[in-house]
């Protein structure tokens, strides 16, 4: 499967990854190669096979509705470049 350069740039943009022109070209080849490799799976007939969601038989873990976490505002914002009164402070975003 061929991925064109425009698609590579779009995916990069959606993922907020900055790429150079030469990177775009090499990524185009790499992604196409990956998709071709995965495409081999299409040869297997999976019509009657349920999608696999787990390797071991296990149900989704649930927890009771209790407050057991939080109240650690200083820790939450500790790594933020800018904070004020425990708010994260970010460049203005207005839509």
């Amino acid at each position, binding site marked *: 499967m061929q991925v064109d350069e425009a698609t590579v740039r779009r995916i990069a943009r*959606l993922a*907020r990854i900055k790429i150079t022109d030469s990177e775009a070209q090499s990524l185009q080849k790499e992604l196409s190669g990956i998709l071709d490799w995965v495409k081999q799976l299409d040869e297997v007939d999976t019509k009657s096979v349920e999608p696999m969601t787990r390797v071991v038989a296990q149900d*989704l873990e649930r927890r009771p*509705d209790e*407050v*057991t976490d939080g109240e*650690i*505002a200083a820790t939450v914002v500790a790594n933020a470049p800018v904070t004020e009164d425990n708010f994260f402070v970010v460049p203005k975003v207005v839509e």
Partner: protein
Amino acid sequence: MQDTTKSATNKNLIPGATGDWEIIVGLEVHAQVASKSKLFSGSSTAFGAEPNSHVSLVDAAMPGMLPVINAECVAQAVRTGLGLKAGINLKSVFDRKNYFYPDLPQGYQISQYKQPIVGEGEVEIDADGETITVGIERLHLEQDAGKSIHDQHPEYSYVDLNRSGVALMEIVSKPDLRSAKQAQAYVTKLRTILRYLGTCDGDMDKGNLRADVNVSVRKPGEPFGTRCEIKNVNSIRFIGQAVDVEARRQIDILEDGGTISQETRLFDPGRGETRSMRSKEEAHDYRYFPDPDLLPLEFTQAYVDELAQHLPELPDEKRARFMKSYGLSPYDASVLVAERENADFFEAVAKGRDGKAAANWVINELFGRLNKEGRDIADSPVSAGQLGAIVDLIAGGTISGKIAKELFEIVWTEGGYPADIVELRGMKQVTDTGAIEKAIDEIIAANPDKAEQAKLKPNLLGWFVGQVMKSSGGKANPAAVNEILRKKLGI
């Protein structure tokens, strides 16, 4: 998609320069799940906390943190589905909806896309003088985002993640609504159902219930037009206004030969207009995929049945029962069931009494007075017991309806036992015909000319009744007064 069945009966067409137009509305309501802790973390959902205090490292999306689902949020979604008479999916899947925004620390929202927990259902609404069935497309569970505050600083936005990760139910209606009023009635009804179920408190002021409103217009009988989505409308009044102004905007564009571009818009209540929110070049591509941190959500039919068994009586059922058991009109029954607390109060008053009289006193006197003072039934100065006692005093003929209103006023302002107040303040109705006759005789004697006229003009009777009531301080039994007066005046 074409839907001609509904437009055939649509009385809500709005006129344009080129003929009538039909409004098509569908709503996505975001209802905050009533739970103590968040959907995938153990931090609190309480409102109004200090910035970033109700935040765990899961909510802040620190590396390596894993989501663990809150069992109660699942139960609440199932209860809501049952309340919407919807199909419950025993298996559903959580997906990641990817986008970048500072108040979404994960870079994706955990939501449900192709396999939601609740499927198709319906809600009945009364609007525009008819009962309309509104289809529910689906209900899914998802995380709320944090909150960005833009007005604290000219160059920076402030981000608070207290809401981040709180469980929301997104309830998607079918495009079955045909006017602003219907859209409002739908959200009002949905809110009532959620509050009865106890699955969402419906507090719109706190943003716990908000709606994305999809509006399009078409000529009756034609296929659906292109829709615009008005995001995050947070009051029932604004939902109505947003539908009307957006429909008008679209009609004006179409009649000028333009086309509607599908986009997200924002309603500005101050200006009474909607405006474009996002530019089209940055078209959204959420790249949904199953969240690898979460297994599919599965439960048994027995689990659903158990929840169904403990559902409370819902507003439609309660309304039907009120009409049947208490002989109430559809209107009175609707007013009483709109809030569960009101319905409970009414039943406490009506128990063992005349339902219609009880409804009349609860709706007209009590609700009227509560509204006037902007109070809730919860802090009503008159209890159900006191109001019931007033109704008993009227039914037993102890006081007249007029005196009862005075009594209500006393109980409202001063409190006390209605029967004692009547006794102590001499408010009892005079049914002693001797005393009434005496008063009538005096009035006739004092007004011989009027008594003479009354024989020719029987409507003068009203004047005499008024005089007798006045002389008795409102305590004479009006039926007895009428009867004796007619006899004495020869009418």
